[in-house]
């Protein structure tokens, strides 16, 4: 029996992405032209992103509550869709350079995006699990996409083994939750006695472990630097922006709907946030490989976001109105962060050169003379990560601080402050190298002026513009994500 059309509308984006994925797969044997696939993938990502508007117009629960199409999922669908779109643009030249097959890459990318979409809209744990697996499994493959590279395959292996390890925890958590509450529908877990059920607590703990791994919260963060470093850089860009956002989305969804979650999780998040911030920033301090440095920094930023989560959980009830600013903080931060990380990794992938050889800081010495615009763009990203004004990152950090102070998490706020100072150090180091160190002769020869294809330049322009725009006029976004009916019901 066919599902109702309204339900189809509500999951249209995922469907579109999947269908285009299938299309790309099917075309692969017949079409040789790379640009064709690129075009197809672009259309696919755009179409799916556009479809999320349709989904938003038909807001409401789909498939008997398995998914929820609301402003929240709309936001995240837009986010992951855009990310995917930009990654496609950035990846083209990379694949060209590394002589890697196009079609499979795009197909996997589309499936992964679909998985994230599911994750963002799911309202039932098993559906969420399927979404998670879709994005994860495609990610495993993408991580190992440079088959002949030792690093790439190793990162794939690590990601795969540990990922499925964590997934097992997540799944076990689902089982326990199911066993204690008799359902996997988040909306049906509001009952009072769950607040006192140990089994439910344990289940939630397991789920937290699984998702904590996905968002790279310390001490689950260990895999991140290795995987990010090993994976092809455009894929790294995707990892740092997409799956993380999706996992955070699911976490938020659970908070908003399951009171027990907010109840149990507060101190866990407090601790995770603190640990993660320090792990990321301290680890990054001594890095000399830019790609790895950015990986560590993304851990740190996950930590900042977790601060906002702690703020949410400290509220009497996750879904309630006074938690709204904290939600907004998370969403806005994810947005700004996604833009920045995408741009940064794109630049890294371009400057990396064939075989990603030029990744060390020294290769960036004197970049400001060789390629002033690239240097400027990278500086904008770094300053945004550092949280300096007129960049989106500044507002993101500002709102998180606000959320933390708002719910009296003063110590956490202070820790975050300390961390952003530590962070400033290594971000500045990159800027310093680019601007204040003259490019030595061998550096010149090693990292000659790298041509930036149009598509890449577009990505850079887009992300920079976005970063600055949201840094000056965050209004629309904020008003959108601050609406009381952000999450349906």
């Amino acid at each position: 029996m066919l599902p109702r059309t309204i339900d189809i509308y509500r999951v249209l984006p995922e469907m579109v992405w999947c269908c285009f994925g299938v299309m790309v797969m099917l075309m692969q044997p017949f079409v040789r032209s790379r640009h064709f696939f690129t075009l197809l993938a672009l259309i696919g990502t755009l179409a799916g992103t556009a479809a999320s508007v349709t989904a938003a117009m038909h807001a409401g629960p789909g498939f008997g509550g398995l998914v929820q199409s609301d402003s929240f999922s709309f936001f995240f669908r837009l986010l992951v869709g855009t990310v995917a779109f930009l990654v496609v643009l950035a990846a083209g030249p990379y694949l060209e350079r590394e002589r890697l097959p196009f079609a499979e890459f795009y197909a996997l990318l589309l499936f992964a995006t679909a998985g994230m979409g599911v994750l963002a809209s799911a309202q039932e744990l098993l559906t969420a699990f399927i979404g998670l697996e879709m994005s994860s499994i495609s990610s495993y493959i993408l991580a190992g996409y440079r088959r002949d590279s030792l690093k790439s395959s190793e990162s794939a292996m690590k990601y795969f083994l540990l990922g499925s390890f964590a997934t097992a925890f997540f799944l076990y958590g689902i089982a326990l939750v199911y066993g204690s509450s008799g359902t996997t529908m988040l909306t049906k877990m509001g009952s009072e006695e769950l607040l006192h059920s140990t089994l439910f607590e344990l289940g939630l703990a397991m789920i937290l472990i699984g998702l904590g791994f996905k968002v790279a919260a310390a001490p689950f963060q260990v895999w991140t630097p290795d995987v990010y470093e090993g994976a092809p850089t455009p894929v790294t860009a995707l990892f740092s922006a997409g799956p993380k956002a999706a996992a955070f989305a699911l976490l938020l969804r659970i908070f908003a709907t399951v009171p027990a979650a907010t109840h149990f999780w507060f101190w866990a998040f407090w601790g995770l946030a603190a640990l993660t911030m320090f792990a990321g920033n301290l680890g990054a301090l001594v890095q000399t490989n830019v790609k790895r440095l950015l990986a560590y920094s993304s851990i740190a930023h996950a930590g900042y976001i977790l601060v906002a989560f702690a703020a949410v959980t400290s509220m009497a009830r996750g879904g309630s109105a006074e938690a709204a600013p904290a939600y907004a903080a998370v969403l806005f931060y994810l947005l700004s962060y996604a833009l920045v990380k995408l741009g940064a990794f794109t630049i890294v992938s371009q400057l990396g050169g064939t075989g990603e050889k030029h990744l060390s800081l020294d290769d960036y010495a004197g970049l400001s003379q060789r390629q002033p615009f690239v240097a400027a763009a990278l500086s904008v990203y770094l300053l945004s990560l550092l949280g300096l004004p007129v960049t989106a990152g500044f507002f993101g950090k500002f709102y998180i601080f606000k959320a933390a102070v708002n719910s009296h998490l003063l110590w956490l706020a202070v820790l975050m402050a300390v961390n952003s100072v530590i962070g400033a150090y290594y971000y500045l180091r990159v800027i310093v190298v680019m601007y204040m160190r003259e490019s030595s002769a061998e550096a010149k020869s090693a990292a000659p002026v790298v041509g930036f294809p149009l598509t890449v330049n577009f990505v850079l322009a887009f992300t920079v513009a976005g970063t600055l725009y949201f840094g000056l006029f965050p209004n629309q976004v904020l008003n959108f994500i601050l609406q009381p009916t952000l999450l349906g019901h």
Partner: protein
Amino acid sequence: MPTHPMLEYLWIITLLPLLGSAVNGLFGAKWPNKIVNGVAIGSTGLSFLCALEAVREFFESGQVLFHKEFFTWIAAGNFRVGFDLQMDQLTVVMVLVVTGVGWLIHIYATGYMAHEGGYYRFFSYLNLFMFFMLILVLAANYVLLFVGWEGVGLSSYLLIGFYFLRKSASDAGKKAFIVNRIGDFGFMLGMFLLFRAFHTLDFQAIFTSSTLQGWPVELGGHLGTLTFACLLIFMGACGKSAQLPLYVWLPDAMEGPTPVSALIHAATMVTAGVYVVARSHILFAHAPTAMLVVAIVGCATAFFAATIGLVQTDIKKVLAYSTVSQLGYMFLACGVGAFSAGIFHLMTHAFFKALLFLAAGSVIHAMGGEQDMNRMGGLSKKIRWTYLTMLTATLAIAGFPPFAGFFSKDSILLSAFQNENGGRSAGYALYGFGLATALLTSFYMFRLIFLTFHGKRRYDEHKVHVHESPRTMLVPLMILAVLSIIGGWLAAPAMLGAGPDYFTKFLQPVFGGSEAAGPEGEVRALELTLAGIAVITALIGVTAAFWLYLKGSGKADSLAKSMWGAYATLLNKYYVDEFYAAMIVKPLLWISTNVLWKTADVAGIDGAVNGIAAGTTAIGDGVRHTQSGNTRSYAVWVVVGALVVMAVIFFWPFGGKPVLGMLR
């Protein structure tokens, strides 16, 4: 056209020298000396004439005090300082002395400096000094006075360091400025205290304020606000007028060209301290303790400096210490309440000490820059005019009637003798020391004369061609000589019993009641006795000098040998400079370098900062090493995380219940 133009435009007096200074300083470099002379002498002479005119108008208008506000300089809250000038009898004396003597010295300098480099610079500085000095004496409030006060310090710094190629010169200049600053530190605090008490710093506003009228006299031993204020101001005076313990800069200041020594370090600037004390006499009148301190310090300085003067061989050094000693007299006078006497001595001293210096300069000029008296002798024939003028001045300072010094010094000793503040005995002690100082004074002055002008010559004919100085130098000498003869006669009548002391009477409106005056009758008797004693003492001094330095040649040296310790001490000025260097300067530098800078700043604070950075990096490296790259370890980390989460969720003391408050 106002009735009293020059009074209305009093600032012109001060401004003329400034103009001269600016013109010379900015454009003088390219001009020939003549024009520079013109500008310098012209501006000062003009301001002298203006001063005369102003004085005339002042007396004509017959007001007790002329006071005019020109513009507000600083205003904040209820604090306001104006560029306000005032004129009263005290000012009149000072202004005339400054402009008059200043002018003469300018004229002299044109001759003396004729062959020096940086001619224009010299006169520019000199005029600048005149400007600030006039501000000082004309100021109508403490702050404006302080402007002049610091300004003269500056110009003295510049002029002492005029030969800046010589390290000793620049050192001396620096020393002078810094030591003065130490005094000014006190002066400023004094002003602050006054403002706290009276909410204003205008002289008249303070002196006539009801607050002050109602102020009880702070009896001996009781340290009230006014006592403190007076002492602080006196600290400033000590710096400026080279009193113990801040006198050390003045002898070194002799590094400057001789006219400078004459003008600044004898006649005018150094007397500023006395002027200030006299100016604030009403305050001092309320603070006997402060008065006593002033008297004691003055007396001590007078004696102390005189002893050093005994053995110095550098002609200018001798004069320098004598200056210090004479200033001590003035403070002694003020201290015992004889302000007019103090000012009187200030005036006469200005005449004869300036003369002494100029004459000495003329000698040096004649000897081609030689300053050591041991290399002079028997010059009286060669440079007769210089000799005569200098002799006059010596007689004056030694206190022989009818020369100026006699009268002024006498009235001081008298007042000291009469002093009751701190008990009769104090008065006698002060008098005693004063008298002793007089003895020493006449001794070392005549020692100077004998060594320089008499006896056989101790210099090499062929090297030094002794010649009389040009007229430009001699004319001022003569004028000053005349002044230092007749200058004292203002006070003569009182002495001769023919009516009152004009000078005191003249200053009456200023010092009014605050003068200590005994009953008429026996005072004159006493005065005459004391005068007699003084003259005798002076004579003893002269004979001693004669006997030691002229009669038998070797006597002085043998005496020196016989009491070597004392002699060496005196010769080395009681090792005061060495003491300061060892006790203050060196330790301060050492502490600043090794403790404050190298230890506290670099090692301590900055070390801590960099240490934090380094520590963080080290920790970062540690964190980094948890990334062993081994999948199994990573899995263990995941397990650790799992345990952490479980532990927090299940065993956290607050049991996950949100606890409000700062704790989180």
